[in-house]
């Protein structure tokens, strides 16, 4: 379905994840982050977001454990940056699909 995020009309799935990775930009990331209660994306947030997008582009199935061993943040920091479900929230902000590692 179509949704307007940061003045851009983009296609999202029923859970609000961008279906087309090419639609993503930093303004969209900021607005999705706000919807998730993260009002300010710090440098650390952006580093994780960028890393997730790179990993995703390389075809990796992402997991929390992988983020923890990325060298960017440990798992505790990851939770602090993206409270609740860090991987699913960070993935949504990064404009990639919800991780498949779940089942």
């Amino acid at each position, binding site marked *: 379905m179509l949704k307007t995020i940061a003045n851009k009309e983009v296609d999202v799935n029923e859970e609000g994840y961008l279906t087309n990775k090419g639609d993503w930009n930093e303004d969209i990331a900021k607005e999705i982050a706000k919807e998730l209660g993260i009002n300010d994306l710090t440098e650390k947030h952006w580093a994780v977001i960028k890393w997730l997008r790179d990993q995703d582009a390389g075809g990796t*199935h992402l*997991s*929390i*454990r*992988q983020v923890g*061993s990325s060298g960017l943040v440990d*798992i*505790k920091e*990851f*939770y*602090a940056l993206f*409270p*609740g*479900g860090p991987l*699913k929230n960070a993935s949504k902000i990064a404009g990639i699909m919800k991780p*498949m*590692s*779940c*089942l």
Partner: protein
Amino acid sequence: MEQISSRKKILILGAGTAGTMIANKLANHRTKYGLDITLVDQASEHYYQPGFLFIPFGVYGREDVVKRRSDFIPRGVTYIQNSIEKIDTTKKEIVLHIGEVLPYDILIIATGAQVAPEQIPNLIGDRWRKNMHEFYTFEGANALYNTLKDWPGGKLVIHISEMPIKCPVAPLEFSFLADDFFKKKNMRDKVEITYVTPLSGAFTKPEASRVLGGMLSERNIKLVPDFSISEVDAKENIIRSYDEKTVPFDLLVTIPPNMGDALIARSGLGDELNFIPTDKNTLQATGHENIFVIGDATNIPASKAGSVAHFEAEILEENILSFLEGKPLSAKFDGHANCYVESGDGKALLVDFGYDIEPVEGTFPLPFIGPFSLLKPTVINHLGKLAFRYIYWNVLMRGLSIPFVGPGVPLAGKKIKK
């Protein structure tokens, strides 16, 4: 087709569910394709892992779930019982613990997944297998049986550490069976059951999550979602999450992280959980055209379950033959999983799904026996689950197919939403 002149060495690592099935299937093609098939495994016993779920409640005992691995090795396949030191993909050989080297033309890795309780801080200590348990090993399931037998009641916490896990429905089944077990002992009022999961609901797939979540609340089982464990506090009897949530327990039944075999890490072939990057359709190992992976050892986004290994075996058999003939790998696995979910009270549900097909309500077409009801607890589904143990030992482990059940997800009978 014409005979392939030089003999090909096929080496299969792991004689569990997946390895035994593919060995039996390939054994049928030995003569036609000139195959020398060798199967290597370190253990002498073959466990019927779906049976572990029933051991804590005293339903199954040793004789139901343990047989000798060598009983299922087909004629003409060489069986070596030894542990493996390393896979050397450059030299195309494996090194056994005793130092012997086995070369291969085609390698099939079926080394499975194991629980890794040591990954959770403070889980293994004085209280391990006393009031902190797992039921994914034969030893663990038996220890839990001994604890449950005369447990006076209190807070029972059923907990999943992280995904993926083998048989992702097993912890739910354990919860339903525990509810039933305590009801039958007339002590359900003395037990508070909590289900703690890193997922956002009872299950990942939305439709099944809704149904199974409803079944938890019907049984007065509390659901704690989005809980990612950082440690156990064995003194205070609590589990703690990374974001400082806590859940107290008197009896903890945890599903520790599941990891691929340490051999995979030693050989530099796995991801951070020792699972092998594998093409989710062809089952070929990423970057190695003569290596294939089957069963729990892969990193594909399908359930780690015996039914998946069974459907994969049919695809892999076809692709190995294509590979031997120098043809493209045309058989594609669609992620098909088919799981009975015990719901207690002599009933079970059936879920049937794949990469792109969600578990939904409807019926599963199985002529003569079925249809089984999908996503709905019925007695016939429970009987199907119990009958499956017979099918496992006598049909699947012999490399035979279940009549009328092909490897792909059947769409007939499913109520699929557009």
